């Protein structure tokens, strides 16, 4: 089961990862020319014209755009969180549901394997791919930035770990919601919508005290890249809350799937 799932989901993993690697590579190749001859300072000066709340939302108040690492800490990680989040949520919403959508479930359900095992094996495979994607992209960033400049490697390593926290929650959320439907088509829009909504809530929550509560609605709060940049440490709350949410959502998904009508 695991072997087959690894094979079936490999193509999607390779496409998503390769696309992101190519985009990151292009940015790292182009970035030196953007910031050369003091142009980076001009970019930073230009940013001062933006409202502080907006700069804060993109970490631009604590990370300058005059280096590639600075870009990664601000816009780069926003892009990484979003893409890895969408991949994770789509994987969660599809990996079990596609058996129903493609009607192979009647075959699968007749095999001597429990429903719990089916879901568990698919979760294991998903985790392998999500974590592999984070590791590959993190390793690429570390290598690429060390070639072109001298980043704070501890901070870079910790930042590279942060996508794990929102991604596993978004995966589990996608999986749980998928137990309410039979068609993967319905889940595509829902998954992408969920991730963007989570991202927007996170941005809004940075805009002021009165809207700070939005952070509790967003899985991206768990990434806390701002905290890592400022303290060079992962927030213990994120390390605890993320796996707890992941476990709770998975438990709910197991319970739902156990009782689900499969045809």
């Amino acid at each position, binding site marked *: 089961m695991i072997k*087959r799932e690894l094979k079936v989901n490999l193509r999607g993993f390779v496409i998503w990862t390769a696309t992101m690697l190519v985009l990151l590579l292009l940015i790292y190749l182009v970035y030196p020319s953007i910031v050369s001859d003091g142009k980076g300072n001009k970019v930073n000066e230009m940013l001062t014209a933006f409202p502080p709340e907006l700069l804060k939302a993109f970490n631009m108040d604590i990370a300058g755009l005059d280096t590639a690492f600075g870009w990664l800490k601000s816009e780069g990680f926003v892009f990484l969180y979003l893409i890895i989040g969408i991949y994770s949520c789509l994987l969660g919403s599809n990996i079990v549901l596609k058996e129903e959508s493609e009607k192979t479930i*009647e*075959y699968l359900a007749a095999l*001597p394997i*429990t429903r719990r095992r089916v879901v568990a094996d698919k979760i294991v495979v998903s985790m392998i791919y999500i974590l592999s994607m984070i590791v590959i992209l993190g390793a690429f960033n570390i290598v690429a930035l060390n070639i072109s400049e001298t980043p704070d490697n501890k901070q870079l390593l910790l930042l590279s770990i942060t996508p794990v926290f929102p991604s596993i929650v978004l995966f589990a959320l996608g999986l749980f919601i998928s137990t309410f439907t039979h068609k993967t088509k319905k889940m595509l829009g829902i998954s992408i919508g969920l991730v963007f909504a989570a991202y927007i809530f996170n941005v809004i929550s940075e805009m002021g005290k009165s809207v700070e509560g939005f952070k509790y609605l967003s899985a991206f709060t768990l990434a806390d890249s701002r905290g890592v940049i400022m303290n060079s440490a992962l927030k213990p709350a994120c390390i605890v809350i993320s796996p707890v949410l992941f476990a709770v959502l998975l438990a709910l998904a197991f319970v739902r799937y156990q009782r689900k*009508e499969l045809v």
Partner: protein
Amino acid sequence: MSETILEIKNLTKYYGKVKGVENLSLSLNKGEIFGFIGPNGAGKSTTIRSVMNLINKDSGSVVFGGRELTRDDVEAKSRIGYLPSEVFLYDDLTVKGIFDHHESFYGKYPCAARIHEKRQELVARLKLDETRKVEDLSLGNLKKVGIVLALMHEPELIIMDEPTSGLDPIMQKVFYELLREERDKGNTVFYSTHILSEVSKICDRVGIIRSGELIKAGQVDEISDKQLTFVTVTADEVDALVAELGVKVLSREGDTVRFANTLPDDELIKKLAAFRIRKIFIEEATLEEMFMHYYEEVPDDKT
């Protein structure tokens, strides 16, 4: 006395307010082919899917081999073969790939020792090409792959939902032979179909389902030979005769009526003796007529 292998007890399943099956009970004996017949929408697939735990029962239970068949009883599932009415498999695999995948689930069960050999035998008899991709298979070939998957682990109970759709007559013959061989080995086949002629060809017993309720179950021979005749009578007082017998007239031409009769012959003749019969013709119902009779006699308000 025959050993019961599968017992469905008081199965009820509604889809919202729509009845799937209601209070359905039936037993399958070891070493028989049990035909489960009924028109489209009668509740055959609902029954089968409830047995396979693909859908949730509202009430009732399914006992297999003496213990309740739950959705996570993998040991019991290893002894069941299932062919759904439409076969959907992983398109990216070849036929060999899907068979290898299937075999991998049975490694720890007693059937593991023979599963590959049985697969090869079935592939040869059904003339399947294992190198072809599942997505390229015709409906008939896909059905043949489904048959191999249902039989290769030599299950004690084989559940088949409309198994011959898509099979050509030659393959149907091979398929019937395979099922008879399974029966002769002591395995049981639960054979759901709406094709009446299949039942007389292959089944030992039959259950007739209509509107979610089992309306008749018994030996095929008993049902077809003894319990229904068609009577054509020409009599002077034909209206009184019909009223006396309480039968539904199938056709009428002057003093001649044709009706379906479920009375034993001697009782029928005793009743007819009260009238002046000019001509009488009693025909034994064919199996098809028998089933049509059962389909039609349940009033619609029961649905």
